[in-house]
């Protein structure tokens, strides 16, 4: 009996692991192929490169004339970091007001905020584009960063309101007795205690902005403003199927920041999804 249980457990482990390997096989293949010489990429579906080379990385990095992929990485980083700062600061400010302060019409504004979470961005697309066009912001980073400074990712406001509500109110009250106003309570008490929620916001904002393709495609037109996703698309269009090696190498590089983030913050990411339903 005990032995058959043991065997069935072992079998289960083998199945889960086997299916798991199939699941991540494409990613592993991409990483390994990026180190294979071009002529081996399509002729060997296996993982172990018969010949290891860094040519794909060198070719890919320098693929655009007078420019390197470094420019795209720099642009992506600038946009993502500003988005992270914007979301953390402005969403936490709004969340503090909703979670801790009283003011007229609070319920109505809160309801409006909730509704915007589910809104497909397409209903605001054309007028937003027109606004940015009138401001002469097309082909700059501003349409991609300014909205984040205006707390438009309402999901994170909601997430932080939920978290702030779990912080004991007595802390605010004793701080008030000590002479703290709402502003001090916000940055001396709430923010330090809400670090996990701020971190979740920062991580997901970074991943989403880094991966975002639609708005970057929409607003950035000239190559020197391109981000990593746009750089990859440019590569795909201009080189076609002739240079898969370089393309795969740059694709691997493009995923690296997210993988590093996941490596360090795995617990926060998985818990963030489990407890709040953020889609990773």
């Amino acid at each position, binding site marked *: 009996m005990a032995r058959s249980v043991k065997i069935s457990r072992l079998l*289960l*482990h083998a199945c*889960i*692991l086997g299916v798991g390997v199939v*699941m*991540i096989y*494409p*990613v592993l293949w*991409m990483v390994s192929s990026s180190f294979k010489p071009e002529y081996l990429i*399509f002729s060997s579906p296996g993982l172990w490169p018969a010949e290891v080379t860094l040519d794909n990385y060198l070719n890919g990095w320098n693929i655009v004339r007078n420019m390197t992929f470094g420019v795209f990485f720099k642009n992506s980083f600038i946009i993502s970091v500003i988005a992270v700062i914007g979301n953390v600061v*402005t*969403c936490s*400010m*709004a969340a*503090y*007001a*909703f979670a801790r*302060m*009283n*003011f007229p019409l609070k319920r109505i*504004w809160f309801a*409006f905020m909730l509704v*915007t979470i*589910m*809104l*497909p961005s*397409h*209903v605001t*697309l*054309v*007028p937003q*584009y*027109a606004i940015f066009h009138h401001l002469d912001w097309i082909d700059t980073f501003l349409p991609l960063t300014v909205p984040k*400074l*205006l707390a*438009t990712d309402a999901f994170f406001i909601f997430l932080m309101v939920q978290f702030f509500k779990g912080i004991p109110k007595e802390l605010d009250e004793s701080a008030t007795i000590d002479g703290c106003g*709402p502003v001090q309570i916000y940055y001396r008490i709430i923010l330090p205690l809400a670090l996990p929620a701020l971190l979740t916001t920062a991580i997901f904002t970074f991943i989403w902005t880094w*991966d975002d*393709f*639609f708005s970057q495609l929409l607003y950035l037109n000239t190559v020197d403003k391109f981000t990593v*996703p746009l750089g*990859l*698309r440019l590569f*795909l269009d201009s080189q076609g199927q002739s240079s898969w090696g370089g*393309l*795969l190498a740059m*694709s*691997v590089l*493009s*995923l690296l920041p*997210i*993988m590093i983030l*996941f490596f360090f913050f795995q617990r926060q*990411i*998985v818990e963030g*999804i*489990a*407890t709040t*339903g953020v*889609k990773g």
Partner: protein
Amino acid sequence: MLQKRKNYLIAYLFLLPWFIGFFGLVLGPMISSLYLSFTQYDLLTAPDWVGWQNYLEMFSDRKFIASVKVTLTFVIIGVPLQLLAALFVAVILNKGLRGIGFYRTIYYIPSLLGGSVAIAILWKNIFGMNGIFNDFLAAVGIEGRGWVSHPDYAIYTLIALAAWQFGSSMVIFLAGLKQIPQELYEAASVDGASVFVKFKTITLPLLTPVILFNLVMVLIKSLQVFTSAYIVSEGSGGPSNSTLFYTLYLYQKGFSYFEMGYASAMAWLLLIVIAVLTAVIFFSSKYWVHYEYGGKS
């Protein structure tokens, strides 16, 4: 009294960025896109009122109809596939196996990376004529083809890409499974219930709030798929419109043809469809979602 007023002012100052964003970038544009949906608008000249024309034109627009079909196919096959895979794997991983953290990571990685352009490019490669998918088919004696460039199959490669990313739903299911009190299973075991009976009478009913949540989230996300279709078809929605997703066509209409009134009408139709579907699901949840155990989802 004065202090109270002052605090109101401070609260509104905390909300100021959100207010500017809400009115300037959400509510204002929403109303204006509703207006634009009844006009012809190309960004450079003033909008021209045309009444219901944009909406009526959709019924005879073959590309529009194709985009609806593609998106519906994707949703009807992809959403159940994704949820079933997520539920199945979550239930198995929840059996108290050792190394669950490691397995969860492996199954989650596709969700983490899947939305990127890089993975869409990888997909285009894998399911291309010379891709590794055909190599594996050849190994079992099946003749391959260029899956992404064939109008009958291209969409299924994208459905596979979406289904592949069941990991985040799985993580949410796993969290839901943890909420189910262990005593229930023990009591059922005493009564001699089989694994299957336990799943049907305990796990499934108590998990319905989480199923509801995942269903709504995956559905809304699936209706708005863009990146993978754009990359795989290089922006065209081809071959023969077989990957012309709704949002891809909306993008083409608005920003390739500059028919921004029509694009706005499509956006509003999408909003209405999402709102109606969500409302229907929430209404129907009365009949199939159980909240006995505190209903924490």
